[in-house]
């Protein structure tokens, strides 16, 4: 079973490497959206510092939305998904492997680049770690919740818009807690409580979301 999971992850990463434009689109979208705010709001450092966590988090949320639809769509189109449904590995595990690969491709780059972008907002350098950590814990939750939405809207016409409507409200707690972690750190309260909550959300989502997405996949492929 581990061989099959390794194989799914390896395959998805290999496909992402061979089709790197998809990965770059998400990353560039994130960079551009975040960079627009200092240009639009003006160069007041105090204001920029205040809005930094919120802006970066909202941009990360939208960027990860952008990649969601692709999670199962191409496998659905070429029949690989059917083979996964009939695979020797429980479908929930296969979905978990796919979500992991999806996060490595669409979430991890955002986490890695966020400290650089935060500098544009005069974000305190010693707190960049907290911001990156909140994203590192939060973006996998976004991918996991998004997987359920992507599975439910698979093969629907106009599925993209529906997916956003379905998934964005579910992202709200992650956004509040994630951005809250960095804000609390800036205001001197320390973001530990929020980071722990994010960790709990991640553990909960990792345990349940793949199975929910698996059920949704079975329904939407019937």
């Amino acid at each position: 079973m581990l061989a099959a999971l390794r194989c799914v992850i390896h395959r998805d990463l290999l496909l992402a490497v061979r089709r790197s434009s998809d990965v770059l689109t998400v990353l560039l979208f994130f960079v551009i959206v975040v960079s627009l705010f200092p240009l639009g709001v003006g160069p007041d450092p105090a204001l920029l510092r205040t809005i930094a966590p919120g802006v970066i988090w909202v941009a990360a949320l939208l960027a990860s939305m952008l990649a969601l639809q692709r999670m199962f769509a191409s496998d659905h189109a070429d029949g690989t998904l059917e083979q996964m449904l009939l695979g020797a590995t429980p479908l929930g595990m296969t979905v978990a492997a796919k979500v992991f690969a999806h996060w490595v491709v669409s979430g991890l780059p955002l986490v890695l680049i966020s400290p650089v972008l935060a500098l544009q907002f005069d974000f305190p350098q010693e707190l960049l770690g907290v911001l990156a950590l909140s994203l590192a814990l939060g973006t996998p939750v976004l991918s996991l919740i998004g997987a359920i939405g992507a599975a439910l809207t698979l093969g629907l016409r106009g599925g993209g818009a529906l997916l956003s409507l379905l998934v964005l409200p579910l992202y709200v707690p992650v956004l509040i807690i994630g951005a809250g972690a960095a804000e609390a750190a800036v205001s001197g309260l320390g973001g530990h409580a929020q980071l722990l909550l994010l960790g709990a959300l991640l553990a909960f989502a990792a345990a349940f979301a793949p199975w929910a997405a698996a059920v949704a996949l079975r329904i939407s492929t019937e």
Partner: protein
Amino acid sequence: MRGERKLFGALSFKLRGGELLRIGGANGSGKTSLLRIACGLLEPTGGEVRWAGENIRRLQEEFWRQLVYIGHANAIKDDLTAAENLHVACTLAGNRMQPAQIGEALRRLGLAGCENMPARVLSQGQRRRTALARLALSEAMPLWILDEPFAALDLEAVEHVQNLIAAHVSRGAAVILTTHLETKIAAALRIDLERA
């Protein structure tokens, strides 16, 4: 039932090891739906499918581990090579293969020299051959379900796949397939679905 339409009903059949079932019928008569029900992708509106006496809905992976299903779609990724595609297909089915075995299976299906080409540049028939090369590696699987396996294949490849199927049936395994071609394999059971 597909949409509002009833495709077939009161259909009952039993397949033993060493038997080949050929499902015939016009386009739209429900052949693919029947195959999808048989492998558990589609839930029948009424009735059940049993494998060795147990409902496949309960068996799930235990049944799927013994099944090879090759549908209309080839499950071939354009950006992977033929060998990589075959490796992924086998590993997903819980059937790990060495690179040498994969190369051999592709050669047997007449794809020598195409192993390391991205599937994007392969023709429709070559993609079908890549998907069907899995059969050469699935001799241990007791049930093959094949949806139009001969579509897009040339005569030589049809001959070859028929030989693979005949050998599999003579090994005591069961095969279900839909096709418009006459198969030369003897003792085939037949079901013809009428257009409702």
